[in-house]
């Protein structure tokens, strides 16, 4: 995997691809069969919100306050997007400049950013497209670089979104940053808040690209180092997600998996680390079950009604 990655990457991707947000991988094989998946998947009856038991997989028992106005929730989502926007806009600008510098038409920037909405692979594609790389190679590159998205379904709060079109959009706009921001505060999400967040991210990314297209003729190059904002964002979100000691084992397993990945497959470290992490968590789960250890991260809400004289429960009150 690493070998082919390097050959593709070196041949075509410009070395100065500014701040590619993540590690990238690519291969030379050719599936372009996945196109058909786009239209039906989200409208699939299996995804019908009516069938979805509410929040079975969500860690925190409390659900977002229902009394807040939808507009307020959308604005809250926008506000939660600001920190990530600090990192996304400069990288979007860099991406737009790269498109022009590679000799591609300007609309490639908003086109890729609207349709793919996946920063690292877009930066990589600019070089591949400029070199007229075969579509099969393009397809494999996209597949491998974006493979990490398969892990996000475990805890992304898609179940709060009911409208089929909105669900389609929420899935389409499930970028690293959206996963990260939602994962650091589980249980607080409503449909409007989530869409406010994702629409803002999309606007930053497309808008940044357009600014970059305009600036390409004026500026010599983007300001170096702004891409650190994304790293800083993930650092703060990790700190926020790790407030209780119960999270430490997961953190250690992630560190172990990442260290192994960096040593063994440095060219595809991100995906290898995520895969290794999931495998380690599955082993942990197996061990915990065998030993009958109580999971400290489990929600404390009991399944069976206890508290026979709960005053707030009218059913029980007059028994």
């Amino acid at each position, binding site marked *: 995997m690493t070998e082919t990655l390097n050959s593709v990457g070196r041949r075509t991707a410009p070395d100065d691809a500014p701040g*590619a947000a*993540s*590690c990238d991988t690519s291969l030379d094989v050719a599936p*372009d069969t996945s*196109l*058909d998946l*786009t239209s039906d*998947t989200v409208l*699939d009856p299996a*995804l019908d919100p009516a069938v*979805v038991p509410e929040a*079975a*997989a969500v*860690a925190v028992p409390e659900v977002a306050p229902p009394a807040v106005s939808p507009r307020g929730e959308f604005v809250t989502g926008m506000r939660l997007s600001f*920190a990530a926007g*600090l990192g996304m806009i400069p990288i979007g600008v860099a991406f737009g400049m790269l498109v022009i510098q590679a000799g591609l*038409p300007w609309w490639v920037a908003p*086109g890729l950013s609207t349709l*793919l*909405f996946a920063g690292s*692979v877009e930066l990589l594609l600019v070089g591949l497209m400029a070199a007229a790389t075969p*579509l099969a190679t*393009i*397809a494999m590159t*996209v*597949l491998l670089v974006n493979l990490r*998205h*398969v892990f*996000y*379904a*475990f805890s992304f709060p898609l179940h709060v979104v009911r409208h089929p079109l909105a669900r389609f959009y929420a*899935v*389409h706009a*499930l970028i*690293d940053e959206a996963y*990260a921001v939602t*994962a650091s505060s589980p249980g607080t999400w409503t449909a409007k808040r989530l869409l406010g967040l994702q629409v803002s991210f999309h606007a930053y990314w497309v808008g940044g690209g357009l600014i970059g297209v305009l600036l390409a003729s004026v500026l010599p190059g983007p300001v170096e*180092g*702004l891409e650190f*904002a994304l*790293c800083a*964002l*993930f*650092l*703060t979100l*990790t*700190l*926020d997600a790790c407030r209780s000691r119960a999270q430490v084992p*997961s*953190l250690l397993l*992630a*560190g172990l998996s*990442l260290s192994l990945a960096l040593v063994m497959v440095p060219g595809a*470290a*991100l995906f290898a680390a995520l895969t290794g992490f*999931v495998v380690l*968590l599955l082993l942990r789960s197996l061990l915990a079950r065998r030993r009958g250890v109580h*999971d400290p*991260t*489990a929600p404390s809400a009991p399944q069976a009604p206890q508290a026979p004289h709960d005053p707030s429960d009218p059913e029980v009150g007059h028994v």
Partner: protein
Amino acid sequence: MSETTYLLAVMVIGFGITFALRAVPFVILQPLRDSPLVAQMSRWMPVGILAILAVSTLRSSIGADLAHALPAAVATAVTVLVHLIGGRRTLLSVGAGTATFVLLVNLT
């Protein structure tokens, strides 16, 4: 194939694959929603995934230029300290860390 057709084909293929990668896991996990294992994984995964993303973006910030390693270390420390001391205001912590990195990288 004209250049425009080629560029459009790249976009359509890229969209199809990226969307499928984002959507299919939801479809697969749907029937497993009530499984205790999936619930457990959804509680255990975020902190680790966030940490892995943090390190991998740190790595791409440093890039091929090892001279960026020290600025990255300092900026990481600034981000973490500002976040823990400054009351976990994400915008403040990210701003401080990024400013530190940009200054160190461009001035040294």
